């Protein structure tokens, strides 16, 4: 009897601990909306989301250029990250002897452990001057940002898609090979399609990582507030807008930054929901 009561108490304590982490999420959400919503309502959602001019000192808070920039940068990162990530996944899970994999896998995970400010610094010192000298423009550009982000999302894409490849029943591969398919045909026609939902989920989580990246982007993108017209243009994403102006902002300006956070919140929520939905489908 006493044991049972004890069990119950301990259970409740753990429930409380679990709930506290959710309640922090709820609190953050509440404060972002409480601070940001009044401004969106004040200037109107349309002027806020589709306005093209961000001049806080004149009361102009249009974040459309930043939404566009966020997507440009992310698109660039995916163009680099998806082929590289997939190739690396296939190589790791199918083509190399396990001993080399043991060496490579931790190295790739290490990519995820490098602080983003280091990526930013590397981009600023190495990539930006190269782009400036060989491609023109200010160097601090969407192109530089996409390159760096492309590398930053590799660990996410590789680890999750490799897991989904590994989770396939061995009979898929054995069956394909037994039917006379070559190794490459087996990979490309059987394994990849079978693991498709997991791979898509990895790409979407990579997208979320790319959209959320702040520090490296502040250092590399140049932060100009305008509609990007080419990959060599400087740009400001939603996250860097908050990061760069938070320190000085007050009043409406500060609320506008929280409102930027609301937009980010919705984008990330949508991406994560999509990723969860896709990876659930794999199980069934």
């Amino acid at each position, binding site marked *: 009897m006493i044991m049972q009561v004890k069990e119950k108490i301990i259970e409740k304590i753990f429930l409380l601990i679990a709930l506290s982490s959710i309640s922090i999420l709820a609190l953050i959400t509440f404060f972002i909306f409480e601070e940001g919503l009044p401004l969106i309502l004040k200037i109107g959602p349309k002027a806020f989301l589709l306005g093209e*001019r961000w*001049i806080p000192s004149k009361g102009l808070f249009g974040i459309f250029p930043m939404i566009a920039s966020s997507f440009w940068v992310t698109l660039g990162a995916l163009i680099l990250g998806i082929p590289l990530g997939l190739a690396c996944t296939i190589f790791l899970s199918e083509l190399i002897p396990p001993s080399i994999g043991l060496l490579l896998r931790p190295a790739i995970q290490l990519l995820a452990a490098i602080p983003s400010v280091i990526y930013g610094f590397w981009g600023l010192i190495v990539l930006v001057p190269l782009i400036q000298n060989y491609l023109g423009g*200010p160097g601090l550009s969407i192109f530089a940002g996409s390159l760096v982000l492309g590398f930053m999302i590799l660990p996410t894409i590789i680890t999750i898609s490799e897991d989904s490849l590994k989770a396939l029943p061995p009979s898929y591969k054995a069956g394909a090979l037994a039917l006379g398919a070559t190794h490459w045909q087996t990979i490309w026609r059987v394994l990849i399609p079978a693991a498709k939902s997991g791979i898509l989920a990895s790409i979407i989580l990579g997208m979320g990582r790319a959209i959320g990246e702040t520090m490296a982007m*502040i250092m590399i993108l140049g932060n100009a*507030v305008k509609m990007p017209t080419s990959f060599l243009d400087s740009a400001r994403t939603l996250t860097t807008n908050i990061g760069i102006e938070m320190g*000085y902002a007050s009043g409406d300006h500060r609320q506008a930054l929280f409102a930027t956070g609301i937009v980010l919140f919705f984008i990330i929520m949508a991406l994560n929901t999509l990723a969860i939905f896709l990876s659930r489908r794999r199980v069934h």
Partner: protein
Amino acid sequence: MYANPKSLLWLLPFLLVICAGCQQSKTGITVAGSTSVEPFAELLAEEYMSHHPQFRIYVQGGGSTAGIEAVMTYAANIGMSSRNLTGGEKKLYVVTIAKDAIAIIVNPKNPIQDLSLDQIRQVFSGKIKNWKELGGPSHTIVLITREEGSGTRESFQKFVMGKEDISLEALVQDSNGAVRQVVASNHNGIGYISLGLVNDQVRALKISGVEPNLTDVENGKYTLVRPFLFVFNEEPSGESKSFLEFVLSPFAQKLLLKEGLVPVLPKIAKE
């Protein structure tokens, strides 16, 4: 049973946190605000602490507005501002600790030496887009400005731009150091930073023939000058007061003069 020494490594971060905690508990004051004033405040704080080893002064950046807000919410004892106070901020107790000139900087490889205020305004508003129009080589000008809310930007807006807007094409960097870094690495860059922070990586332009140096700042020929302020909630007392007195002392003011600022004590400036 002895624990494997490696397994104790996880304790390390906790120890560090505890150590950091005990350092904080030492009596000290926090100075926060403008990134333009920050390096000079750090220097002064170090000097002050070397004379008063029992005190700690924590200097933080964050920007003029953040510093003033920190003082109003009692998060900091002293706020640093590189712009004049506005609106509700005016009720605070303000002391000018030095004056600073804003230098217009270009890459040392840029042949341009001298621009008029009017030319600078046209460059930063995006009307002049190529160095050729100013007599330089044919390259697109890369503008570098500070973010909205920055004290340096506000002063630049007031002194140079007037009613005109800074071009939206301009790159935005969030500190004097970052602006300097971009100009130093981009041959076509032009930006503006505190004169005290100009080093040999960049070159400060003459403005209509007037060199941005201390003599010309002092005699009023160089006009892009703004105050560096210490901001308090009320008339300072205790440690804040003794630090302020130190900052205004001839010794500290001489130190600031050596770092490229204009002292507030006239007799030192003349020496």
